């Protein structure tokens, strides 16, 4: 019982990192930036 929070910590850390890197991959892949780069080039 005393260890519950430690298990939550370990599992939570793995899940958190997985979600963050998954979102990073989906939303921040290079081809998602054409619009922004075009904006910079215009200036």
């Amino acid at each position: 019982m005393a260890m519950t929070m430690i298990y939550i910590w370990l599992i939570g850390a793995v899940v958190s990192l997985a979600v963050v890197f998954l979102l990073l991959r989906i939303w921040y892949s290079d081809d998602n930036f054409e619009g922004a780069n075009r904006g910079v080039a215009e200036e």
Partner: protein
Amino acid sequence: MVLQTYLYAGMAVLFGIVIILGYLGSTKTNSMEDFAIAGANLGPYVLGSAFAATFFSAATFVGYVGWSYQMGLANIWKWLSLLAAGPIGLLVFAKRVRKANVHMRSVSLPDWLGAYYDSQIVRVGVGIAVLFNLFYIGAQLSAGALIFEELLGWEYEVGLAVITVVVTLYVMAGATYADVYTDAIQGALMALMGVVVFISVFWVFDWGALQTFPRLSAELEAVDPNLVAVINTESLLYYSPFAIGAIFFMDFAFAAQPQLFNKILSLKDPADLRKMIITYVFLTLCFILVLFAGFYMRILDPSLAAADQAIFVYVEQYFPPLVAAFLGVVVLAAALSTTDGLYIVISTAIANDIFLKFLVEEGYINIENERADRISRYIAQVSVMFIGAIAYIIVLNPPALLGELVWVAIGGIAAATIAPVIFGIYFPNFVTRKGAITSIFIGLGAYTVLAFLMDFQSVVVQSTYAVIISSSTMVVVSAVTRQEPGVASNHETKRAGVPSDD
């Protein structure tokens, strides 16, 4: 005695570096844009580290360790929230904010929102909201003063005066160029210290690798069974599932805080956001391990006079003097790095958002642009002095828990700004200027009532209620009003709806 010698030497080196970087910064600071966001000209690794150093302040090292000490393993919820909710918040906000700014070229959150909603009232309202950061600055200065008090034996007031003067002079001279570079170095040092403090469990307790965490839990339980509870009903922050959810919600919202927002605007190439975020997440993972010091200290000495002492007593008693002095310098650097960023946010709000973009552009003050930019820099520097003085007064009597004071500030700003930012960037065709204005002022009003007139157990829960109120206001008012011309006109998504505009 040895510790004090090392600490004085370490501080001399730190202040030497700070003065040199401040000087280099001042030679590069020629315009308001330079002062506020270093001319949008910085690389991703520097900014990622600076972002982390600003996100994690002396409040992490001192205040959040104090939370661990006081509330036990339930503070692991905060650890997870910092690892998950903060980065996800950044992912949600960063790209669209940075993209929109390619066209708007704003230098701060009030400026960005003012431009986005094409409204001076929005700009001034958010400019007022960021003044809540005075509490945040106060908390950082107080943490800096605690280092002098705990490790060097100075009077608290003397330490507070010294750190206030140092930070104030530093910001006046160097502005963001120095801010970002010192932050980047401090980010790396703080990450290193987080790891060192975490692994110290292996030699301080010597329980053997496999037994370390079972023993840690058992020892905490022996001190007080609440310290290992998943929901610690006796704690200020983790007393119910809703209160725990509020922690995650507010860390998510924290990613759009103005001092962090500036870092996103400073990025040279928006395509570098990915590298910036990976740098930030990696350093975060290292930093937040420092929270464990509070658990260790609670086992070693459950009777400290104040929870915020935990980190200092731990390093002083259980580390070699050299390492303890190094940690003292890192915490001091952490206090400096976050504080200078906050100074810049407030002084930019006054000099740029209110003076330059409102009073001069609207013709209330009639001067040519070049002169106005020069005057705005003087205003920025003078306001820095006032900020230092007010923050000093706020923490002249140190608060019971530093972490709480930080959240008074974050809550106030989040209540005013989260709704207009997030609904703006995700629903550019739906939001209206009237919606943004009502949401900002109702959010500010609701937060002021909740924070200062009502008695909440958790500062984070009161902030969450205020954000819910301001978000509902934004949705309802935007739904019943028609979008005004000029609102969200620079938004990528919205532009994409217009056939072949470029």
